[in-house]
């Protein structure tokens, strides 16, 4: 397969959103699990485990959105306006997640802290759910009009399949967040969180299997590529092996490798999404010929070329300094005078 600019940008947007899922995925997962911690110390440790890095992680969403706008403006326009209320709720969820972290421990009152704890969890769960719902809609198909605009309603977005992918995303991030917490905590909290790994994996696997079955049965266009290129099945296999590897690494006390496996599982999941969807970005049902693709919804070649140069300069820089910053904050989370 030759790598033209449109395909390159399909990949790059995918990489940006995958980076978001791997990184803010555990932030949202930690948020989703937050209310299961008990006592002010545990709550603070939970928030501070992501305290220094959640903001940088969220930038992957902002940049992914910006890249979508620049490379595939028609997709950005159709999806963001078409899924209007869902996007608005996503924004509110992200706002409340962000300010909850910043505000929670700034006052000592119990009611204040409980309010922001709930806000942190609600925002995190809602954000994960809505992101999964949006992705599910792109896959399952939404009515796209002849003029390229969304032709359905808000409730249309909450059909069983997208709801399923929404719940699966929550489950995935909870699993990923739990593994992250195991990596970053010690003592009593570490042991408690370690006990959450198995239920979160089970929850995710059930969702994943159900979604896979539903996709095989009801979303034929996603499995086309597997029929024509059976070698891609290996991606699904690696993903499953990665998930299976998690309990093995946790049991062996190799928390970081468990986290890597979880990250690999997310990458494989999104790779399958990309492989199945390509070249579609928004699958249209009915009227599949109205689908928005990497070719009919893209910017000009000149813009894609300029953006590619920007990406080639910018992304390696980002990866380099992000890795250094994570390295600086390696190790178990400890509460000190600068913590939340």
């Amino acid at each position, binding site marked *: 397969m030759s790598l033209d600019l449109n395909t390159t940008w399909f990949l790059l947007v995918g990489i940006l959103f995958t980076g978001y899922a791997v990184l803010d995925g555990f932030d949202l997962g930690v948020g989703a699990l937050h209310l299961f911690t008990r006592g002010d110390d545990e709550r603070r440790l939970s928030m501070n485990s992501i305290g220094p890095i959640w903001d940088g992680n969220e930038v992957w*969403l902002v940049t992914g959105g910006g890249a979508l706008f620049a490379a595939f403006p028609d997709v*950005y326009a159709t999806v963001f306006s078409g899924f209007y209320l869902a996007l608005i709720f996503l924004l509110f969820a992200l706002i409340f997640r962000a300010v909850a972290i910043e505000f929670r*421990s700034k*006052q000592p009152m119990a009611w204040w802290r409980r309010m922001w704890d709930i806000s942190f969890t609600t925002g995190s769960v809602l954000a994960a759910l809505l992101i999964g719902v949006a992705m599910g809609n792109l896959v399952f198909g939404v009515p796209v009009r002849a003029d390229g605009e969304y032709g359905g309603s808000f409730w249309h977005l909450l059909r069983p399949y997208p709801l399923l992918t929404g719940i699966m995303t929550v489950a995935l991030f909870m699993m990923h967040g739990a593994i992250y917490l195991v990596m970053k905590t010690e003592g009593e909290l570490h042991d408690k969180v370690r006990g959450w790994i198995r239920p979160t994996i089970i929850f995710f696997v059930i969702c994943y299997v159900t979604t896979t079955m539903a996709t095989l049965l009801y979303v034929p266009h996603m499995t086309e590529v597997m029929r024509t290129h059976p070698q891609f099945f290996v991606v699904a296999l690696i993903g499953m092996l990665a998930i299976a590897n998690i309990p093995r690494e946790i049991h062996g006390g190799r928390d970081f490798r468990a986290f890597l496996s979880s990250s690999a599982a997310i990458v494989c999941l999104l790779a399958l999404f990309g492989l199945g969807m390509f070249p579609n970005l928004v699958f249209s049902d009915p009227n599949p010929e109205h689908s928005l693709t990497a070719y009919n919804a893209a*910017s000009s070649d*000149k*813009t894609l070329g300029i953006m590619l140069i920007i990406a080639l300069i910018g992304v390696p820089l980002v990866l380099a300094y992000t890795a250094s910053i994570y390295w600086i904050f390696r190790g178990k989370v400890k*509460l000190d005078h600068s913590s939340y």
Partner: protein
Amino acid sequence: MDLLLLSRLQFAVTIGFHYIYPPMSIGLGLILVIMEGMYIRTKNPLYHRMTRFWVKIFGLTFAIGVATGIVMEFQFGTNWSTYSRFVGDVFGSALAAEGIFAFFLESGFLAILLFGWDKVSERTHFISTCLVAFGAMFSAVWIVVANSWQQTPAGHHIVGEGAAARAEVVDFWAVVFSPSSMDRLSHVLMGAWQAGAFLVLSVSAYYLLKGRHVEAARASMKIGLVVAGAASLLQLVSGHESAVGVSKNQPPKMAAFEAHYEDATPGTLYLFGWVDEQTETVKGGLGFPGMLSFLISGDTKQPLTGLRAFPPEDRPPVQLSFQSYHFMVMIGMTLIAVSWGGIFLWWRKKLFRTRWALWVLVFSVLAPQFSNQLGWMAAEVGRQPWIVYGLLRTSEGLSKVVSEGMVLSSLILFTLIYLLLLVLFLFLLDMKIKQGPDDLDPARGHGA
């Protein structure tokens, strides 16, 4: 309430609220670099304490800036999807560049700035502070480039016809260096430095009036005065350059700013006035005939384009443009007086004891907030009815599948949530100020 009005109102509310925070972050960023730089150089623990204090406030403004900023990036797609289709090549590229180059940098190194005190060397921490400050300023670059392209489009060509018409990039650097972008960028940055500096001045003045944290307050005040004085003067220069540019590149906007109706006549410079849009005159104003022409071209007789040169549907709302522009200028002039008055008193060694002057400084924190908002109002209202000047009307940029009910709901929700955030922000800021820089929080208790 029609869809256009609701969508514009929502954009105004969300951007107005958002714009309270990034200017403070950018301004405080600069001041943090100065304060921490002084510590690195002098090793005086006073500067270290000051830096620690202002870093906490920076963290607060930054977080709300980010939370409200994502709303803006999404809103082009949610409410202005037709605009997004038209400008995606150009405008989207600037936004993506903002993300890749600036947001990652400032949000990434923010980790070290806020939490890395004990994890890295003093030098590394200072470099992080510089990178965060630079990232914040660099993000201003890209968003101003994007908005400036709306004002003075360049570096593109239009491809396609009618509903399928799109702007496509022809010359990336011509887009970045469009006729207005650099003037507007310096104007935005100076406004941001003012926002940060006057916040620092206000808090420092408050401490001096209460006789608390005196040493830190004095040192902060000196830094604040230097930044405020420099920024306020430079603001006048960049404002002038921008105005000359507007007169050349967006004549109806300048005509609206000074209610210059009569075409091809010398322009009157008003200090203030009330525009009677029916009779197309300015009432109760203090105007200097010919002075507008003089400021723009050096010649009081230079004819300027008047509003009557444009059909009514191509003219911006005059009253709102006129008033926001003039109040912005008035506040700008006042800030020059306040900052340089403060510098004068400092020179005469009277500043720290002159209570009325300190009170002026306490309240001055509000001034750049207002001038920044008014400036943007002038810029955006003055550009109407265009969303891309001369190419696309605002009314043509709306989303096609979004209903009035949806926008009304989101508008109400945003307004309520943002009001809540504003109250919480002021409450937490007040608490932090009352706590002051000298007490470092114990490890237990709230991680203020």
